[in-house]
């Protein structure tokens, strides 16, 4: 079902043991987002989460690094909301658009597919590159696993 990958797109898929309505709510309600939005070692305080669930509405979070208190603000705008199966937001700063698709697999299981397009150009600046010193060996593994964008599971 997947055609040739488009420009600069990434796809992440995960199956959750939970009904689709609940998963969709988790992705769209601050009370839930605060529990999981930040990666490991990063908190997302409830008071700084804005979810205005309508096209053109704000989707904003501030992720705070638990170790040093540094923070990263995301200021995105919802493009499309189709509860409980589809959610699209775009980050005007980077131009990156994220589409979340929620598929009811039956039996109380839900597949979430995150599809991102338009990788931001600033990542090619010399400053950004300096921060991206990675091992080539690990890189090859990432690329093989991720860039193909094929149907995951």
């Amino acid at each position, binding site marked *: 079902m997947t055609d040739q990958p488009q420009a600069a797109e990434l796809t992440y898929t995960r199956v*959750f043991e939970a009904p689709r309505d609940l998963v969709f709510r988790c992705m769209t309600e601050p009370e839930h987002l605060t529990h999981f939005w930040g990666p490991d070692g990063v908190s997302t305080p409830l008071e700084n989460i804005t979810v205005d669930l309508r096209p053109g509405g704000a989707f904003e979070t501030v992720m705070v690094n638990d170790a040093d208190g540094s923070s990263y603000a995301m200021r995105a705008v919802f493009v499309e909301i189709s509860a409980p199966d589809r959610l699209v937001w775009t980050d005007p700063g980077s131009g990156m658009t994220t589409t979340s698709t929620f598929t009811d697999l039956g039996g109380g299981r839900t597949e979430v597919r995150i599809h991102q397009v338009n990788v931001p150009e600033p990542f090619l600046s010399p400053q950004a590159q300096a921060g991206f010193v990675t091992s080539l060996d690990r890189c090859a593994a990432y690329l093989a696993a991720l860039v193909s964008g094929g149907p995951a599971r």
Partner: protein
Amino acid sequence: MTAAPGRLDDMFIALADPTRRAIVTRLARGDATVNELAAPFDMTLPGISKHLKVLERCGLITRTRSAQFRPCHLERTALDAVAGWIAENQRIWSERFDKLDRHLRDLQETPGTAPPAAPGRGGNHD
């Protein structure tokens, strides 16, 4: 001559192909000629050359003009930009999904906090 300025978009397209990823992986071990690169693949030289042109256009590899062999060279800095961005993005979503998985389990293990899985429930604001 000099490769066009590398753009991340073009690099993603270039790396979306498994053969081109294999070429990049091979070049990570050192420069190689077209013949050397073609050896492990069941592919004609023109076929490999086509892939190399894609990699060259986006700045991931360069080719010297010396002699007819024109060894290919991997531009590590360009690849680092791609790999670093992907790795970071992948890590965030992976850890986010792990946390969401735990959160969903907590919700469903605590009676009264999770809504029933009512089919056909549309917009749901409580």
